[in-house]
């Protein structure tokens, strides 16, 4: 059975080399849609998405924790339906990231949990540095603050992130872990840059407060806890 290589206006190019002209396309799903890719003349959605899957799952694990697989499934379906909007294969990683991030945001919205009430005046006044110095959890330490951080495994840090509401977690993960610029995240979420910068600021402060609470609740403030 011949595969569609390219859909352009009302003409379809098949891999057999045949061109079917005057075709009326029905439905949105471009089953074997292709995109111009510079060096490679055409790439299918499957080729592009397969390369990106490990990265998308990794990002989803940090954004959505136990819901990561569902979020990536959502992302693949949405990306597949919108594949005709992607015109440059080089833009595929950022395009897929954008869809994934929005899937996470939408999932957080529709979860319809009680909105978390946060006293941002208190959060704004909190300094993890001063808290550690004041509480002095490791009295014999010469490097108290570094010793505090050394108690956290990567899993612990990700668990702390999962305590934050999505709107603050997303900027921390996408900007600090995945290296996107705040401006790029603003474009992905279609919000003003100032909104992303404000969420980053609050997210960082919340992250500090949650690092301390997590350490208290998980026994990380005892000498030799690890």
């Amino acid at each position: 059975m011949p595969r569609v290589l390219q859909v352009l206006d009302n003409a379809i190019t098949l891999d057999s080399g045949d061109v079917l002209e005057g075709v009326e396309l029905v439905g949105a799903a471009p089953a074997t849609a292709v995109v111009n890719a510079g060096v490679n003349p055409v790439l299918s959605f499957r080729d592009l998405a397969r390369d990106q899957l490990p990265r998308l799952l990794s990002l989803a694990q940090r954004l959505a924790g136990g819901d990561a697989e569902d979020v990536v499934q959502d992302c693949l379906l949405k990306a597949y339906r919108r594949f005709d909007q992607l015109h440059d294969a080089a833009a595929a990683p950022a395009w897929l990231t954008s869809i994934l991030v929005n899937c996470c945001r939408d999932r957080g919205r529709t979860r319809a949990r009680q909105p978390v009430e946060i006293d941002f005046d208190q959060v704004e006044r909190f300094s993890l540095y001063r808290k550690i110095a004041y509480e002095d959890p490791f009295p014999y330490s010469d490097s108290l603050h570094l010793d505090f951080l050394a108690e956290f495994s990567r899993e612990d840090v990700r668990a702390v992130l999962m305590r934050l509401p999505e709107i603050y977690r997303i900027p921390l993960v996408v900007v600090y872990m995945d290296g996107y610029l705040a401006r790029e995240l603003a474009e992905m979420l279609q919000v003003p840059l100032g909104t992303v910068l404000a969420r980053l600021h609050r997210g960082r402060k919340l992250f500090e407060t949650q690092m301390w609470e997590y350490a208290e609740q998980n026994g990380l403030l005892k000498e030799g806890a690890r």
Partner: protein
Amino acid sequence: MISCTQAVNQLWEYLDGTVDDAERALIDEHLGRCRRCCGELEFARELRRTLTDAAHDDLPDHVLQRLYRTLEELEP
């Protein structure tokens, strides 16, 4: 001149390079005379590194395989 609270509240932005020149000058001036805030700055740098380093995680192979299968089903 700015207070310690004002300086500390902008340290991540300072590290990110997202403060403007005037704000940077005020923070630099404060750091030049406040040893505690220099400690805060170093700690903010380490905390940011801790966050960045936590990006590397293990991917469960069975989940990845299921997602590859989803992709096959989308585009047979």
